[in-house]
């Protein structure tokens, strides 16, 4: 964290006035968010029969081997490695694609920006089932079927419109003074983009990358449709691997869900430190 000016300290002091109420509300909201998570942790420690008769309460006898079973049965170690590749490529790609596009739409001269916005929104509104089958034959012909790269390109396409529009909305709120100054000094557009704009919208980029990465992490339909090789499949497939007759062993699903949650939580925690208020940290507030 960069050293804060005294002004920030003064602001923090001013915040103290309504603290108790603020914290009370925050605690209530947190309880709402975490209550079901607690139920999920309990579920992961039960047998299917116990889950059926006692879905809410504490597990009678913690079935820790659910985690082992889930991990082994669904081949989660391979899945997590594949997911790491797919998710990081998706997140980085979406950030670059969406960041540069948003910059172009807000700061550069593009033809018919309104039409582009409209296009991006309409594309977002198409249900996946509408283009799944044609895309699959297309991808086969292009040789992208059954490759992780092919899947990543699909994720780029699907997750970048939202990211672009999101970054655009952040970028609009930031005054262009800095960039203008840099341009005056003769900096090229790419330099301006990388050196000036990206740091300015850093929280936005992190958010966009996180959102795209999360969506890719939990995505299932496209992954199983476009990847055949079991060794290349992401970890989200695990949640569908615990069949029991005609339905699913929800205890194992909960266990696998918890295992899946941990890496993302770690990523979020690490990124949390970087979520420094972008505006304040650049000193633009002067």
């Amino acid at each position: 964290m960069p050293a804060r000016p005294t002004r920030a300290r003064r602001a923090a002091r001013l915040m103290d006035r309504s603290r108790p109420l603020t914290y009370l509300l925050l605690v209530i909201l947190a309880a709402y968010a975490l209550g079901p998570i607690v139920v999920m942790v309990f579920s992961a420690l039960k047998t299917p029969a116990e889950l059926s008769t006692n879905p809410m309460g504490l597990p009678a006898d913690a079935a820790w081997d659910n985690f082992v079973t889930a991990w082994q049965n669904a081949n989660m170690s391979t899945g997590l490695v594949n997911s790491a590749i797919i998710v990081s490529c998706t997140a980085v790609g979406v950030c670059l694609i969406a960041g540069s596009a948003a910059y172009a739409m807000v700061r550069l001269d593009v033809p018919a920006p309104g039409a582009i916005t409209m296009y991006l929104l309409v594309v977002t509104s198409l249900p996946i089932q509408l283009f799944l089958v044609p895309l699959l034959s297309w991808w086969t012909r292009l040789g992208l079927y059954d490759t992780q790269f092919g899947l990543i390109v699909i994720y780029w396409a699907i997750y970048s419109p939202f990211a672009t529009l999101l970054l655009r909305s952040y970028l609009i709120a930031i005054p262009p003074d800095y960039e203008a100054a840099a341009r005056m000094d003769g900096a090229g557009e790419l330099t301006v983009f990388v050196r000036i704009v990206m740091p300015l919208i850093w929280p936005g980029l992190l958010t966009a990358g996180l959102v795209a990465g999360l969506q890719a992490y939990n995505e299932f339909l496209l992954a199983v449709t476009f990847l055949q090789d079991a060794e290349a499949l992401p970890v989200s497939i695990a949640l569908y691997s615990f069949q029991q007759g005609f339905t699913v062993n929800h205890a194992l699903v909960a266990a696998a869900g918890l295992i899946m949650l941990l890496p993302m939580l770690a990523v979020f925690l690490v990124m949390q430190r970087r979520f420094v208020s972008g505006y304040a940290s650049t000193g633009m507030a002067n």
Partner: protein
Amino acid sequence: MSVVATGPGGAARPPRPPARRRGPNRRLTGLLFLAPLLIVNVLVIAGPAMMSVAYSFTDWDGINTPDFVGTANYEALAGDAAFHRALGHNLVWTLFFLTVPMGMGLLGAYLLSRVRRGQTLFRIAFFIPYVVATVVSAAVWRQILSPDAGLGPALASFGVPWAGDVNALGDPDLALGAIAMINNWQWWGFLVMLFLTAMQSVNPSLYEAARLDGAGRFREFWHITLPGIRPTLVFLFLMTIIWSFLVFDFVYILTQGGPAGSTDMLSTLLYRTAFSESRAGVASAVGVVMAIISAITIAGYLILRRRLRWEV
């Protein structure tokens, strides 16, 4: 009230011209920055989707050679009670998601922006539901809402007798609301994150000035926070409408449109038509109608934007 007088821009915006330069070279640069986005999009979505639009005018079953049937699929939808019902559910869903999660998201983000200690913890707590895969949360919520041993019977044993009779997912009158609440549980924390990020971009000196002017909490929120994040707010408003017409996951996992069609959505109808009934042509028509509804909404937004001169 000099603060308010700076206008609804929040972050004071200088005039635009110096930022945007024109000329053929500038235009090429702009296009180059846009190119990756447009190329992958056309390749993956727009191109294949055009083929499906063509299928919507055929009797395609997904396998056999399609025959052109004109607008028969659309006419069939216009008179289809199941389609009307699904459309109605999507509209109710939209109204719910424009109000409850938006309100909770704004509240959560605003509260978070006001605290330093524990901010990270709360942020993570709010966000966890969004990180959990939908299949898992759906299973957990089904347990919580179980009429045999879930929250209802638990409340009943603590002296809330009516709670024992509530069968949220099994009662056709309650199921849609129940799924909306479950989806909201996953969703609002995501909005908190987006709103909070936007709030962090609001010029802090505006808040300080407001406080020095003695503005109250609510005034501050109304006159500085909201205008400051307006681009994000309007954008998420629009996205909520679009996403509300696409909603699929929770509905499909929890009820697949039942009981008795009470939670059927356009997307579940589309899925059923395409896969269970092998009517890919009709399913494409449903998809096209979904896209048209969104396009109309978006066009309305763009017109409004021009008329109100919003910078969003």
